[in-house]
């Protein structure tokens, strides 16, 4: 699908849907954010005191249960995502749900269970920097995301830059899906109305927390996703009762404002060029 700016239903949207910039001064205080990933290194200097709870998937007979986790992060990825969230929303309450790197659990199965756990706990924002292309997960994921939507949980998923669609990032109606851009300012995210993957956020050479109290420069849609999660935490601190639909609308309004600002700056740059 091509970029769909031309086909937007209301090009003057931001004229009657104004959002001031006050939310940018907030910290995400009191907003619960779940990170469904490889665990989080809670001792990292950037994350100390910010990880409220860590659980991990364990097999109990044929079911998957979540027990308190002390194994931290085996891959570094969850820590990287939490680092990005904590930078944008330093007072958000982060909950680690470890579903990757837990031995003996089938792909996707633990990931689905982790999502269900987060929805049951009614965490306000859920960071899902994972995906699957297995057709058998299509229906259960769809069902879970509908439940999340109805429970007021805002699920943010990383797109998968693969030739085939991956779930859940293609379920654009019930979640917020994000793809990486080379932008560096976390507030300067974009919204592609009509695209399957609607949001764009920084995801190229993002410097963030890593294992062993370290830092890494990382590239991937996985790292664009937590940028939007952090932004949503700020919006929810500002207006705690926002529904997933309202959050998406607010993101759209802010992105439109960003685009308009960018267009003005570009015009100014062009007009300042010496005349030929």
């Amino acid at each position, binding site marked *: 699908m091509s970029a769909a700016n031309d086909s937007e239903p209301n090009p003057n949207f931001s004229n009657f849907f104004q959002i001031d910039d006050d939310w940018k001064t907030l910290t995400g205080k009191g907003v619960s954010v779940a990170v469904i*990933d*490889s665990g989080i290194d809670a001792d990292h200097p950037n994350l100390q005191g910010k990880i409220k709870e860590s659980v991990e998937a364990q097999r109990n007979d044929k079911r998957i249960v979540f027990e308190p986790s002390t194994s931290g992060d*085996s*891959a*570094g*990825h969850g820590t990287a995502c939490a680092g990005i969230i904590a930078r944008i929303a330093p007072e958000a309450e982060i909950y680690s749900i470890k579903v*990757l*790197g*837990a*031995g*003996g659990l089938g*792909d996707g199965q633990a990931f689905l269970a982790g999502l269900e756990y987060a929805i049951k706990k009614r965490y306000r924002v859920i960071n899902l*920097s*994972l*995906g*699957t*292309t*297995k*057709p058998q997960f299509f229906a259960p994921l769809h069902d879970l995301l509908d439940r999340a939507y109805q429970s007021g949980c805002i699920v943010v998923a*990383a797109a*998968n*830059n*693969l*030739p*085939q669609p*991956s779930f859940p990032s293609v379920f654009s109606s019930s979640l917020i899906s994000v793809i*990486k851009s*080379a932008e560096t300012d976390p507030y300067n995210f974009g919204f592609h109305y009509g695209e399957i993957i609607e949001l764009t956020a920084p*995801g*190229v*050479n993002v410097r963030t927390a*890593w*294992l*062993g*109290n*370290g*830092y*890494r*420069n*990382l*590239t*991937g*849609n*996985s*790292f664009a996703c937590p940028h939007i999660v952090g932004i949503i935490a700020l919006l929810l601190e500002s207006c705690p009762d926002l529904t997933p639909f309202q959050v998406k609308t607010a993101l759209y309004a802010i992105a439109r404002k960003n685009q308009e600002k960018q267009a003005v700056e570009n015009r100014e740059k062009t007009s300042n060029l010496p005349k030929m």
Partner: protein
Amino acid sequence: MSETNEKNLQANLKFLIETIDVANVLTEPITKSIENLLRISAAAMNSEEASVLIRDGDEGDLRFLSAIGKVADKLLNLKVPAGKGIAGFVLSSGQPMAVADVGEEIAFYDEVDKTTGYSTQTILATPLRHNGEIIGVLEYVNRVGEPPFESFTPAEMDNAAVFAEAISTLVNAYESAKLLRKLDTKTLNEEFKTEYAEVRRWLATLRDSAEHREMLDLAVLLREVASRGVGERQLCRELLESILRFSDTKTETSLLSF
């Protein structure tokens, strides 16, 4: 040499020759093709080292199947435990990722570098998929020339996903060839008493389409029936033919009729 010993030797030699032959014929052209594709794609990615890691067992462990570059020989068959390092994450999450400064701190899963003596500084890893299943990981490491190396770009990440598509097909072919090889090795071994139930269990663990698995399972079942004797074979044939006749006469308009 007694007659029995000679017979045993002959049988063992036959088994050995056939096994080696089968192994080479089936898998070698595929691993060669994977290596060639790695070489071509690494040149396009301006990368110094490239490797393919495949699943090793059911717990999410990985092992190097193919590699090109300075330490390729040392990498082959090296294992990466489940969930460890960038490859482990890409396998379990299905998300491609690039890391610009791997060597900066000690926390990177550096067992592979320790074994090979190589210094990984920048890396791009993308999943290998077949029928929606993640069957392995494709990695590009460092750049051609001297460090410091430029990090991999988003455009290169997209290109790697395209190379991964082609390589996945070959890796899947390799897995199938390896499976047939194992089956043949078991069959050729005269000492081996075929445990059909075990073979069926083993087939059930195969990561392929459910339909393919079901057909293979059926084939093993048929083979078991056929090995029971002439009477069983005859009965089986009659039963199968009558199923076909039933199937031919069945109307396909209603899903509810039996």
